[in-house]
């Protein structure tokens, strides 16, 4: 499944300072759909090169990270259980506090 993943607010530093990743994620053997839960685990294995604790906590993202699926907060689509489809754009962004 072709997906676009974007990292911002400093999270890009965890994946070699690259903000936009066009990726191909295969369904896991025996599964019929790809959920955000699966994608997070894929990201952690394949993209996050350092300090994974800055990206995840347990099976979800760490506090202070917003997840947006096609420009919508993932809270509105079922969070970890959201099913992804071809060409979805998923943004992971860390909240900023500076001024």
């Amino acid at each position, binding site marked *: 499944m072709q997906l676009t993943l974007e990292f*911002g*607010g*400093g999270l890009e530093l965890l994946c070699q300072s690259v*903000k936009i990743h066009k990726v191909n994620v295969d369904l896991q053997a025996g599964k019929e759909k790809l959920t955000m839960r699966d994608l997070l685990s894929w990201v952690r294995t394949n993209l996050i090169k350092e300090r994974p*604790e*800055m990206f995840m906590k347990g099976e979800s993202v*760490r*506090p*202070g*990270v*917003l997840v*947006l699926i096609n*420009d*919508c*907060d993932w*809270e*509105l689509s079922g969070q970890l259980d959201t099913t992804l489809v071809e060409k979805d754009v998923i*943004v992971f*962004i*860390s*909240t*900023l*506090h*500076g*001024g």
Partner: protein
Amino acid sequence: DAGFGHGLSPEMVYRYSRQLLLPSFGVKGQSNLLKSSILVVGAGGLGSPALLYLAACGVGRLGIVDHDDVELNNMHRQIIHTEAYIGQSKVKSAAAACRAINSTIDIVEHREALRTSNALEIVRKYDIVIDATDNLPSRYMISDCCVVLGKPLVSGAALGLEGQLTVYNHIGSPCYRCLFPTPPPTSACQRCSDSGVLGVVPGVIGCLQALEAIKIASAIGEPLSGRMLLFDALSARIRIVKIRGRSLHCEVCGENAAFTEQMFQDFDYEKFTQSPLTPLPLKLKL
């Protein structure tokens, strides 16, 4: 009312004429603005343009809170301050700049850090609050205070080459805790003073904060409530995304929340976030 039936003096009509000409703003929008009061917390990178534009456009009463003094290393982004004010209070400097561009509005100086002990008293006097601070405990504290007092909160942030903006606690939009019930680990919290910021990035976000506050105060347009603007200066990309509404389970603004003024005053925001309300000095080595 100066005999014109709209409450604007001839000098005001002349000063604000370009705004009065706007069909979607007009005399009604200007009158609403002149009757409104807006508090800007932080006279730094975000507060500088926000304060200048709010003063210029004719907000009736404009409050400025900050405890800091102007430093030379602020000047690359905090355009409200001049070199002549280095070493003096940021509030004094910002108030003087606002008065110099509009002597006809009321500028109120709060030369102190916003804390749980004074926040309720200060925020209560204003219709709308702008969060232009630079640290995590202040962001939780200001949001909670706005929930307790029922004030809309225009919240901006900038760091490095990125900025973020939304309106909390307004017509069904979430509060800061609805979005971030648990504070991030302290290792994830960067400040401009630690990590740097390109000066014009808070400039863009501060202007947009002024705009959102003006829209709410004058009752025009669609505020950025329930939406968040994400700005990436380096690639010149801007996303405006839909975020969750108010959470029924929020500890502060939710259905069964019982977060009182007393609880607010007793809450330890520095302990909750494990971060200090005022930044530590920085040593730069090149």
